[in-house]
């Protein structure tokens, strides 16, 4: 099939950037979206133009590196699918496809479609862990975890840190990402001791990074390629309320 692409080109962080139109022909429906961009790039290089920079690595939907806004939708039209796993059979001959980077103040554009998502790492560094220095761990079976809690924790832990939630959110909020980690750790017995300091630390880091506030719209969960459920945000809110009320710090409570 033949496609028209309109791609955001921006030489560097200081450049203003603009949409540029390209034509790509003979696209196979078995190609992945990124393979289609590879074909374009091969051609651009031979024509003496700069190829389009875009982030990708695993190309199997797990590393969270790919990050394309395709026709105004984070990771494109197929639900539960990252851009690298999106295949061209989802499009038809003659389509025009707009490709843009994630847009958020906390994710500044590095070049073309590449953004800097360091803000997510900062949120994790602010509490998204369980303190368990190597060597200090008790025998794994000393604390059983109810299967339903383990499964729910896993569901939240599936987040790949791609940032599609932020890209899709009308408020530019990173609350789904933050809530996914808070939920995972607060569902596990091992996560209890730091439960309340964690949520405060992470939400503060989130706000500080320049993400917008959450108004429970739900676009994030609709765009999330890993199906992180919206109710994780409710868990975060509940922990946050408890943490900010005095009780959470009181011994024995």
């Amino acid at each position, binding site marked *: 099939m033949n496609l028209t692409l309109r791609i955001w080109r921006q030489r560097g962080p200081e450049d203003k950037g603009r949409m540029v139109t390209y034509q790509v022909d003979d696209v196979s429906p078995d190609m992945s979206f990124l393979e289609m961009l590879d074909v374009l790039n091969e051609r651009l290089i031979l024509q003496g133009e700069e190829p389009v920079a875009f982030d990708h690595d695993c190309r199997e939907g797990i590393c969270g590196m790919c990050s394309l806004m395709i026709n105004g939708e984070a990771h494109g039209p197929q639900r539960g699918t990252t851009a690298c796993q999106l295949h061209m059979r989802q499009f038809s001959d003659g389509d025009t496809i707009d490709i843009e980077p994630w847009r958020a103040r906390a994710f500044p554009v590095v070049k073309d479609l590449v953004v800097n998502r360091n803000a997510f790492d900062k949120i994790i560094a602010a509490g998204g862990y369980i303190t368990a220095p190597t060597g200090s761990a008790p025998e794994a079976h000393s604390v059983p975890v109810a299967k339903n809690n383990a499964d729910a924790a896993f569901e939240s832990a599936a987040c790949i840190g791609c940032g599609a939630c932020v890209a899709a959110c009308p408020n530019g909020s990173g609350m789904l990402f933050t809530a996914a980690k808070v939920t995972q750790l607060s569902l596990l017995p*091992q996560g209890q001791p730091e439960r309340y300091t964690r949520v405060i630390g992470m939400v503060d880091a989130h706000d500080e990074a320049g993400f917008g506030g959450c108004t429970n719209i739900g676009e994030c969960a609709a765009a999330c390629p890993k199906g992180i459920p919206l109710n994780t945000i409710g868990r975060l809110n509940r922990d946050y309320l408890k943490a900010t009320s005095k009780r959470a710090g009181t011994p024995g409570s």
Partner: protein
Amino acid sequence: MDLYTEGDPIADTKAPDGPIETRWERRRFEAKLVNPANRRKLTVIVVGTGLAGGSAAATLAEQGYHVKSYCYQDSPRRAHSIAAQGGINAAKNYRNDGDSVHRLFYDTVKGGDFRSRESNVHRLAEVSVNIIDQCVAQGVPFAREYGGLLDTRSFGGAQVQRTFYARGQTGQQLLLGAYQALERQIGLGNVEMNARHEMLELVVVDGRARGIVVRDLVTGEITTELADAVVLASGGYGNVFYLSTNAKGCNVTASWRAHRKGAHFANPCYTQIHPTCIPVSGDHQSKLTLMSESLRNDGRVWVPKAKGDNRAPKDIPEDERDYYLERIYPSFGNLVPRDIASRAAKNVCDEGRGVGPGGLGVYLDFADAIQRLGRKAIEAKYGNLFEMYERITGDDPYEVPMRIYPAVHYTMGGLWVDYDLQSSIPGLFVIGEANFSDHGANRLGASALMQGLADGYFVLPNTLPNYLANAGSFEKVDASHPDVVAARAAVEERIQKLLSINGDRTVDSFHRELGQIMWEHCGMERTEAGLRKAIDEIRALREQFWQRVRVPGDGEGLNQSLEKAGRVADFFELAELMCIDALHREESCGGHFRAEHQTPDGEAQRDDDRFAYVAAWEYTGDQPVLHKEDLQFEYVHPTQRSYK
């Protein structure tokens, strides 16, 4: 032979002797320690943030060292360990099915086709149990049973259920555990994280590894980073084949640069070809996707009995199907080790019984399992893998059997290290897939995660201090030291060279062609003639590369073509060494199958008299020099591997 020369044999001088169960304990006790107050003054560079690098950086920082960490992705969380699906082995024996440290040790040595070191493997099996404890404490959400205890499943090459897993995302969950521990240390200021930085050279001063030269991939700036020791955890080099299950960015550059500076490269030809991957769909193919080996627990592998039978799978009656793994290997059936399953698939395809476009595929069929356990149960176990398969191929595996074909997956070879995981350059330690240490000629499923974490959490943090204890007597270096300046200049020169060729072919086109040569002649089956041909072709292509490659843009700022070009340039050199290694090893073992050396029924034929050694190659710039490290087997006596 004309292609290499033979040097002095080498020995692993750090490996203790005595009863095998006591060796690690003894080594730990004998190792020198560093006073806690002095640790902060010591800097360790860790290249790579995968399971190996992430866990090592976090642990060393917890111990009090100052750590500088590097990865080429935008976040340490994205190292390719994230993609591991199936699981991680540990000798917990929670199932009471006869597992033990000794059995895991035994299975791993045997699975590696008797080409690994017993001491190392035993240590690996010992610490495997600590890994599970550590990960659970970090909040890794392993699969659990209704009673709240950890679930396990079976994996290829073992008859016990010792594989712990987190649905089909075990690597992701383990890596996030290590990543979170690392982020905690970053937050505390103990680790200086440098994401989107690529190591392009090793700095060796006075015979010791003292730093690296890195390029900031965002600004293009080249800097030298100095330290008291350097740890490489830069992963495997499967991408030398262009198509593999590795991430696009996986590369050999860090290891190769160290090799050029004097680190021996061991067993480069040992490559693992994974039997269950999604077949190639066209020329545009940029990578191959693994379908976890765990699928072989419930899926049955078959091809039609007749050649060229191109009926739809459901129209082929039971008695016209050949469940060839079950037929040839009745006791392990579909769960034979990877090398065996892959070669069997190749054989049936070579016979003309392969299915799908080009006849390069076999069926992995879940119909029986779905009937026996119900669709729900299958969905719970493999749901995400089935979805992934459908997304890529457009076929629904609940209805139509999957089509799979072997693909390059893992590299057992890597930089040579001693028992302490130190390379032949003092102060350069190598961990994870980047070293060669524990898997011999074939790695068992779910053992790479185990090895990466064993190295990073438990082994290196015990052996590195022994080296650092003497750091006080090292020569002082700063950026103006002539060796440091030279290392940096070499990097700049190479980048300028790549940018200035301005030829008429893209980097990818070269990489793809190199991959085809390697797959054809240094893949699942190797012959002397093929390997010789490959070496000639690689040399010719490399020459073309340096004359005709076009790298657009400049060295400033993000330039993904430049990154690729540097990596491919190193792959060319590695590819040649792999072929030389494969050529010199005139036997078949594990993932290395020489067509000239097979048993009458087509199994790999080892030659223990001539080849029970590790081939450690020294770089000379011209013919490589082979150093042999003899392997001794005191506990597991080499036998012909049999899974029948």
